[in-house]
């Protein structure tokens, strides 16, 4: 990837590590939330940005993951085990939910996932024996790993930042492997991909499952961060919000989700300057952003760079350098 990119990433990394030492607990909570949502957004970016499958159920997977961890840890399981369970459970469910993707076209798939996420909400709310229903689950403990208690805001931030880094690295590895190329091929031209021996069925399901699994892992971080979960937190709005993060950040760019989640977490806070009208301002900003850079922030950046470095119209930037070229 470009030198500029390297500098940006290193800069961001340094900042991410330094930030909590300058922030109050509130600020730390916000950037912790950013790390948590970024994990889920990376997952959605994988299904949507790379494999081209629209999912409106990512929020539901966060919910499933969060409930899994909350229930298991309160049942006395060690956090790491619960963490893995959350991920794998969502992976399996995602694999199952992927099947419609094999049958129907993109926007119909979106509708199926949309229905799915609402169904998940109903189950979480109604199956009180399991999920405590509308009361939600409170007093979720933050994990202690190898004697390191993540109870304090800053500790937990570094814990979730670390998790994010590991997961992002793993995703990065996968996207640099032939799989990344296969996912893009799947998005670009399934017919041709198939005739080149690419098992579209398995790759589609895989993309969906991994994306959902990351959603679950994000939930596994969400639960101990907020220390309380209720069905209402995982309704469609959350899925929409994640979709927004991916698109606004730049769908199909490896770092899109990082930027998108940052915007989705901090922009409303920032807009609060306008008091009661902040959500209107936020919504307006999003609409404006979509109108002026429909390819997301990174899309715009890439176009800007392309525009100065080379003449002629820049390529459709949904594809980016990092993830796919060896």
């Amino acid at each position, binding site marked *: 990837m470009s030198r500029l990119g390297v500098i940006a990433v290193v800069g961001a990394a340094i900042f991410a590590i330094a930030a909590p030492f300058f922030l109050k607990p509130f600020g730390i909570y916000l950037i912790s939330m950013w790390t948590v949502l970024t994990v889920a957004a990376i997952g959605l970016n994988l299904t949507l940005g790379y494999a081209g499958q629209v999912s409106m159920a990512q929020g539901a997977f966060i919910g499933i993951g969060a409930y899994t961890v909350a229930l298991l840890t309160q049942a006395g399981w060690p956090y790491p085990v619960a963490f893995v369970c959350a991920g794998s459970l969502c992976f399996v469910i995602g694999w199952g939910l992927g099947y419609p993707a094999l049958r129907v076209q993109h926007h119909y798939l979106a509708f199926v996932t949309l229905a799915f996420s609402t169904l998940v909400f109903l189950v979480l709310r109604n199956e009180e024996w399991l999920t405590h229903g509308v009361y939600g689950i409170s007093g979720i403990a933050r994990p202690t790993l190898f004697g390191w208690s993540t109870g304090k805001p800053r500790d937990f931030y570094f814990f979730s930042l670390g998790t994010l880094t590991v997961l992002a690295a793993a995703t990065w590895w996968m996207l640099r492997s032939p799989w990344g190329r296969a996912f893009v091929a799947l998005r670009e031209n399934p017919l041709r991909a198939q005739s080149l021996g690419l098992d579209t069925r398995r790759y589609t399901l895989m993309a969906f499952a991994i994306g959902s699994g990351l959603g679950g892992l994000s939930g596994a971080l969400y639960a101990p961060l907020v220390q309380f979960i209720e069905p209402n937190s995982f309704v469609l709005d959350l899925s929409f919000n994640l979709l927004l993060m991916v698109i606004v950040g730049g769908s199909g760019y490896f770092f899109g989700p990082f930027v998108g989640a940052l915007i989705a977490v901090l922009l409303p806070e920032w807009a609060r300057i306008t008091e009661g009208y902040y959500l*209107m301002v936020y919504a307006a900003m999003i609409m404006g952003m979509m109108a002026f850079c429909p390819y997301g922030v990174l899309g715009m950046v890439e176009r800007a760079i392309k525009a100065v470095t080379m003449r002629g119209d820049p390529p459709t930037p949904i594809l980016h350098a990092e993830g796919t070229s060896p």
Partner: protein
Amino acid sequence: MASFIQLLVSGLATGAIYALIAVGFTLLWQTSQTINFAQGEFVMLPAFFILESMYLGVPFWLSALIGIALSIVILGLLFKFLIVDPMLKHGVLPLVISTIALSLFLKESAKNFYSSQAQPFPALVPSTDLHFLGAVVSTQSLVVLAVAIATVVALHLLLHKTRLGRSMQATAQNPTLARILGIPVRRMVLYTFLINAVLVAVASILISPIYLAKFTNGETLGLAAFLAAIIGGFNQVRGAILGGFILGILDNLSAAYISSQYRGAFPLLILIAVILLRPQGLLGRIEERTV
């Protein structure tokens, strides 16, 4: 039995409203590939236009007209030119995000500039109850049913019996061909947006006496219309109507006979079944796919 009829009748009345909203939804999809996630808020808003102008002392009937006019301008013209047009060429998703943001924007506007409280809204007819076959229906729901059906029939005639309508259909089915045939595609698309604006305004006037004018009304309505549209057939006006009725009745029957806690789940299950078994919807056409 009586109770069954009761459920059926109320279901129809509710379904008619869904249908009304779903129709506009499908129109936008057909002519401009717009999935309008703000459709529910589009229905919520006109009621406030009307209340506002009544607050200024304008009589109801005139306010209603003003409300329709305003929604044509704001939810029709402005929506198309400010939000849809700039984004159309970039594919469906950015527009989806934008309409989602729009729905938040409209909700918050209604709340901030009018009130978070549910507002009483004048009914078209005094609500008296009629009895038949042991079931009770309020004149209100009958009027809703009647107007909804009338509107939809009118729309159907417009689309199938008039030259304009056929041009719009052509535009919906194959813009390129329509352009070759010399149909002013852009204008046709614009018309569908205006029609949608009128439909939502009418829906708003019909439901607000029952739902009361409240900024959250869009949430349930939007999703219901959305489901209705897909179940019935995303690219067919008739389908949307069928979908609306199915939804309205199904909701009542499932709540009464299966589970009220899961009443919301049955439409979704139907939706999934329909998409898997008949993706184009019950009455839909299969959209030509380029292989």
